[in-house]
């Protein structure tokens, strides 16, 4: 009997493909680093790496939440507006109450983000508005609210307490505090999707919503949860954004959702839901941030970045779909061959 052998071959093929995704990003990351190291003189300096780490941190924090939403076969376009709104609110709170506790303000930002995300979730799960339309609308609405609140004004760094700004400027063990926070969020996120029963449901829902309902999974509640967490992390992202870019006005973080979605999609989270890992998302965010940093050092126009983001999404989605189809075909074929072989054995 050689069934166990066949088991492992099918398994290892599949897991190899998934690992391939992460290895692929690592490889691309290595190539990008090598390229920029040669072309841009100070690319490899500690300072530059600390800059990349700071840039990538907020994308990762928000990306972890976005990942949960995408896993359920939805999308959240409003995260940029939530980041902008909570960034302004955090900064404004400090500007008006210089003595406010940093942790308390962070909690407020998270709570506001949670509420906004909850609205998205309710729109999608209860009012049955497709996620792309719902969050396109809330993207505009939250930004509109932001503009209302700022009233055209802005808050500058000198209005903010040092305790808050230090979040972005300090570098324990040579790594920026922001990056530590992002690492913490990513680890908690990774643990959650691995160990929390409710977050395993996200995968099931994204993989086959109909079957999820049959299996007794509370689909609506889970989708709302995913959006609410995405909103809460965008709130935290906004709070961090204000410490990193302390001059906050109504256009802060405009278009930020594209950076986040690019990181998530490049990181291998399937836009059809059902598969993806937090490690992939972190690597995806790193790749995006590295390339953008390299572009800046090489004085390549800001706008090529935008182009690159979009292009990367298209390429990642295309490769994803083609690989998934190939994999399915390969697995099926193997299985069919195994069955044929078994029938042959039985027949003789």
């Amino acid at each position, binding site marked *: 009997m050689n069934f166990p052998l066949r088991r492992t071959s099918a398994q290892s093929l599949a897991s190899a493909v998934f690992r391939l995704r992460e290895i692929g990003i690592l490889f691309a990351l290595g190539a990008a680093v090598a390229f920029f190291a040669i072309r841009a003189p100070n690319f490899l300096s500690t300072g530059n790496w600390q800059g990349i780490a700071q840039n990538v941190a907020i994308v990762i924090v928000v990306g972890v939440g976005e990942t949960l939403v995408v896993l359920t076969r939805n999308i959240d376009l409003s995260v940029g507006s939530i980041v902008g709104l909570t960034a302004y609110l955090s900064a404004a709170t400090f500007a008006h109450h210089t003595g406010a506790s940093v942790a308390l303000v962070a909690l407020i930002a998270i709570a506001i983000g949670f509420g906004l995300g909850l609205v998205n979730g309710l729109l999608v799960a209860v009012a049955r508005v497709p996620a792309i339309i719902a969050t396109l609308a809330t993207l*505009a609405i939250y930004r*509109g609210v932001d503009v209302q609140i700022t009233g055209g004004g802005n808050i500058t760094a000198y209005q903010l307490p040092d305790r808050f700004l230090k979040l972005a400027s300090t570098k324990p063990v040579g790594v920026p505090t922001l990056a530590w926070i992002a690492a913490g969020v990513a680890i908690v996120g990774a643990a959650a999707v691995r160990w929390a029963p409710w977050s395993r449901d996200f995968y099931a829902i994204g993989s086959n919503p109909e079957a999820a309902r049959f299996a007794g999974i509370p689909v609506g509640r889970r989708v709302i949860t995913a959006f609410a967490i995405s909103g809460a992390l965008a709130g935290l992202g906004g709070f961090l954004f204000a410490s990193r870019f302390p001059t906050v006005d109504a256009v802060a973080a405009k278009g930020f959702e594209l950076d986040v979605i690019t990181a998530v999609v490049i990181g291998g989270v399937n836009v059809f839901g059902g598969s993806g890992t937090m490690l992939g998302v972190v690597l995806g965010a790193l790749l995006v941030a590295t390339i953008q940093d390299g572009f800046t050092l090489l004085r390549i126009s800001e706008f090529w970045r935008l*182009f690159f983001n979009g292009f990367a999404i298209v390429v990642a989605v295309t490769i994803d779909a*083609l690989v998934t189809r190939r994999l399915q075909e390969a697995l099926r074929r193997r299985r069919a061959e195994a069955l044929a072989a078994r029938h042959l054995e039985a027949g003789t």
Partner: protein
Amino acid sequence: MTAARAIALRLLARWETLLVVAIVGAGIWSTTLSPFFLKRANLLDLVTPYIFIGLMAFGLTFVVVAGEIDISIVSNMAVSVVCFAQVFDAGVNVWLAALIGLVVATVLGLVNGALVSVLDLPSLAITLGTMAAYAGLAYVILSGEGVASFPSGYTKIGGGYIAGNELPIALPVILAVAVVLGIVLHATRFGRYVFTIGSNREAARFSGIPVMRVRMAVFAASGLMAGLAGVVYVGYFGSARADAGTGSLLDVVTAVVLGGVDIFGGAGSMLGVFLALVLVAELRNGMQLANIQGDTQDIVIGGLLLAAIVAGNLVRRAQTGRFRVRPLRLGRKEVIAHDAADALMPSKLAPQNLKGR
């Protein structure tokens, strides 16, 4: 329920009727804000600044009816605008340059179409990507400040007036486009294919409908309309900038969805989209009169977009439960129209062997 009430309710339940009521309501509200609203000049000019949005909405209608989405449409317009401007700036005739802008936009639409239909990829993710890519491309192409020296003979089509300097040229233009596209969508084989694919792509394929080609064509149409919108945009604003149309995606999508086009595909009407465009234009105009800022206006428009979908869902659910048919669709109108036509034209006169030709 009496028969008369049932008929009244059915008429009321037509989406287009609701839109007309909303347009009148918004008009009354605007009049209370400023008596200037009812001036003929203001009424005639109401839609002019939103012509380019309308053109894109018409293009997007084909895509959404076919069951897809194209959120790259506004970025596509920006690319066509800057291509147009660059070519014109290089000394090419303005009309030829405009044509080149149209071609570029159509090609970009075809890129979306090829990715979605040939490779069978999700249009949402693909056009999200191309939205960013095209926007970046627009900036990259127009490296400088922008072009603003278009000849007045050209800018007239966007901002000029005829008939005693009162009727904006853009108004008859958009009406004509709406009528032509309405005919394409509702009275041609191509249009039927679009509806069929949007209702059930699988069944369409099994029935021998060239699904791949039609899906490709709707994205090309969306690109072409983005190009046309670009041409009008330059005409209206008299300048070309890489951020042309930024922020108007919300209005475009709202016009389509508010116009009663089923966001899941398979239903919608050009008339509805046109009425929704008028409503959006009217509301923006009214809010301007009330001194409400652009971004704050977005809150209202975004709310309207959400409300339109929720209302559509509610009505659909209520009526599906009762009649087991999908309301607010052309189906209902056809029952009336067909029966009337049948009375005039007995079916006996129908061609006996349709396969003969």
